[in-house]
């Protein structure tokens, strides 16, 4: 009987001690905060932010002569027809020299922390040169690699499935632009876009895992090169 009581008391003490241990962890580790250590990945935080964004009304409409919607089905009929005709004959890589008309009129100079990757071919769809691109990498949100894609292409309508409250028209680097900011300023595991309308179509910046301040720095450089 004594042994039984002893074990019972030990059990109760263990439960109480364990409770105290966990309580201290909750206090000490600040569970529920959104702080991230460099390189650490909190997938719950990432997914909660993205899920919350998807709950918001989507942007559909025309800004600065560019049509943006969450799918091609949301585009005006003419934009859908133009897109279908553009790719009807298939798209192939062609030498960049064939796309001289799509080159930036001024040198593209991104800040030193953005590292240029191998330049890929230009693109021709249905026999016509339609796009030229540049790719960069940088250290992005949380010390994790960020990707930057810059594209000058024949397009007047774009599929961006984004919350309407992320979309704004503003002046960037002295040019009017459509800015689709990251979901949160840190940009962690998020995509952001900047669109400069052009006479031939569009200069488009797409970033992944790049903080908002970085997106704006890239946009300034691209605006300067495209004036």
């Amino acid at each position, binding site marked *: 009987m004594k042994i039984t009581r002893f074990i019972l*008391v030990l059990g*109760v*003490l*263990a439960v*109480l*001690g*364990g*409770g*105290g*241990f*966990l*309580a*201290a*962890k909750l*206090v*000490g*580790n600040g569970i529920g905060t959104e702080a991230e*250590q460099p*390189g*650490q*990945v*909190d*997938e719950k935080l*990432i*997914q909660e932010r993205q899920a919350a964004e998807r709950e918001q009304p989507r942007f559909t409409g025309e800004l600065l002569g560019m049509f943006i919607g969450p799918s091609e089905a949301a585009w005006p009929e003419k934009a859908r027809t133009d897109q279908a005709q553009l*790719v009807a004959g*298939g*798209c*192939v*890589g062609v*030498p960049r020299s064939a796309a001289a008309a799509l080159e930036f009129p001024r040198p593209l100079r991104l800040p030193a922390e953005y590292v240029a990757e*191998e330049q*890929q*071919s230009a*693109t021709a*769809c249905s026999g016509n040169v*339609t*796009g*030229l*691109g540049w790719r960069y*990498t940088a250290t992005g949100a949380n010390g*994790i*690699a960020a*990707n930057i*894609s810059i*594209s000058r*292409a*024949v*397009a007047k309508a*774009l*599929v*961006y*499935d984004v919350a309407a409250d992320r979309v704004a028209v503003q002046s960037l680097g002295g040019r009017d632009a459509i800015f689709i900011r990251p979901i949160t300023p840190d940009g962690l*595991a998020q*995509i952001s*876009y900047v669109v400069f309308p052009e006479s031939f*179509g569009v200069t*488009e910046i*797409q970033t*992944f895992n790049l903080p908002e301040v970085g997106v704006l720095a890239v946009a300034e450089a691209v605006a300067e090169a495209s004036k």
Partner: protein
Amino acid sequence: MLRIRWLGLAAIALGFLLGLVLPLPEATTANVGDTITVYMEPPTRSSGSSAFNTCGWHDECTESGNPGPALDWDAPADFGSPWYFRSWGYTSRSPGNRLYGRGIPLVTQTGGTTCEIRTVWIAELTSGPLRAIPVYTHTTITNSTVFYLYARVYYGLYVSRQIGTTVNDNRANCTNTGSHVHEYDVPYGSTSYSRNGNYPTLDTCSYPEVPDGCHSYTNNDVNNYTRWFQWKEGQ
């Protein structure tokens, strides 16, 4: 009775103090310093079958393309074919058969004028740092649920998980010659990596221009790994 009450209060206080001082016991605390090696496998066709490699090591699979970190894998039928995250996980020492990480499917490029790109971030399980970045172009995600990755000594543990499907992303600034996955990796942090030299080069396999050097590879055979990532746990 009074003595038991005091003992209870003391236990709570002691537990609280220990909680402040000691680290939270985590699944792999004992494994700090273990070497984890992840062998990536061809991402197309059902597990155990033959995936067809349509372009050897390349950056861009065109006549003017350059050698690079990517392999192209034919996805049968049409666009909409499934693609998979596949890997073998190895630990350097016992106990084996354990979790070592998480796979986090993410959209890295979508819409606009360029290609559709997805990644699966491989992050360590407990302390949570990102360890590797395999990337998959011309794809969409149909299952973005985070999944767990397992490892074992000697024989490894295999994971095959459908993440999404291939997509026709022919656009003003994207070329896609048919349903396939362009699979590569982004070197990251202190993680070592290596790409399997047994696969052909761009000179000998750039389908359909030079199909002779292109071959099928059993997609769950660890010898047919496309690339491996390696790091020391908790460091």
